[in-house]
């Protein structure tokens, strides 16, 4: 497991943690039942506040991605296949929204972006 925190980022630290763990779970890098570091241990490793890691884990629990069992620790939750797919789709959608926004800023036309996408689909393996 690998988490990298940037102190220079505009994004709050807890969000950086949530995002990275979420990605690892959704991409299957972290399998169902895999243990996560304890809140305090993660705080120590990342040199951040316990409250920050706690908040990140609480957020992940709310999203149903992890479960915390008292005195045992936190684990990757069992994932519903359909739900998982839906979540992944949502992530793609979010990223595409970014692309659309950026394109508008640059004044790119829909067709131009579509062409770009087509080329990328062929080139990126």
């Amino acid at each position: 497991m690998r988490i990298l925190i940037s102190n220079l980022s505009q994004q709050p630290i807890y969000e950086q943690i949530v995002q990275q763990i979420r990605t690892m779970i959704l991409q299957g890098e972290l399998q169902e039942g895999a243990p996560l570091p304890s809140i305090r241990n993660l705080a120590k490793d990342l040199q951040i506040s316990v409250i920050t890691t706690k908040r990140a884990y609480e957020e992940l629990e709310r999203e149903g991605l992890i479960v915390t069992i008292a005195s045992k620790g936190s684990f990757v939750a069992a994932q519903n296949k359909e739900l998982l797919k839906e979540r992944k789709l949502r992530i793609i959608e979010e990223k595409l929204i970014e692309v659309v926004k950026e394109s508008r800023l640059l004044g790119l036309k829909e067709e131009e972006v579509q062409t770009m996408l087509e080329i990328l689909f062929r080139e990126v393996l």
Partner: protein
Amino acid sequence: MEKILEINNLNKSFQDFALKDISFSLEPGYIMGFIGPNGAGKSTTIKLIMNLLKKDSGEIKIFGKDHVRYEKEIKEDIGFVYDQNHFYDNLSITDMTKILAPFYKKWDQARYLHYIEQFELPKHRLIKEFSKGMVMKYSLAVALSHQARFIIMDEPTAGLDPIIRSELLDILYEIIQDETASILFSTHITKDLDKIADYITFINRGNMVFSRPKDEILESYRVVKGDKNILTGAIRKKLIGLKEHGVGFEAMLATKDWDNSLQERVLIEPPNLEDIMIYTVREDRQNKIDS
């Protein structure tokens, strides 16, 4: 679980300074940064907690017990680091420890020697030949070697080089891995706390400013910089610690006071604790001059 520290409406006045209605508390398992400019009353508060100074009024409870009535048993579980050298300086640390260690029931000599080794302290040189940082490290070694549940540190990082400071932070994380221990860490160098602190208690001129989770504080404020011509009366009122200079202004703004008219007209940056301290103290001084 009972609180490690609970202070309610603490007051203490001296001829030229008064600590007024200080209240805050600390739960087990956390690190609290205690900040404020020099002379804000941090050391006074710590001395009151330790009953080195007599409070005028208010309540201080440590591990849920009155700090004077249960002084002896409470202090068994407190590790303290003061900002000055109070050791007999014509002794070596080995002799000093021989005096101090027997007072603690849970003294852990192996752990003490481990820290002395880690901090590279000379065991037989006299304390008077020590640098400020070395005295601090010795103080820490003693504070951490009797299984204290509450570590009180007054300006521990002053006089320590960055490497030792970073080692100290690792040790502090190690302490709170055990969820029953807490740390109160006073400093005017807030950089160390930007990372490690869970809670921040901020006092200024003897008064409480706030005592809140650090993340919450950092999210509540933004540093804004911009052109002076956008400073209308309404905006000025919202800005904290406004400083105008030749080519613009800088100030702090509470996120709840965010004004959409400022969008794209100012540069916005997340603050660190130092910014929050500087802008708040500046605002306080400006108000004092105005009134």
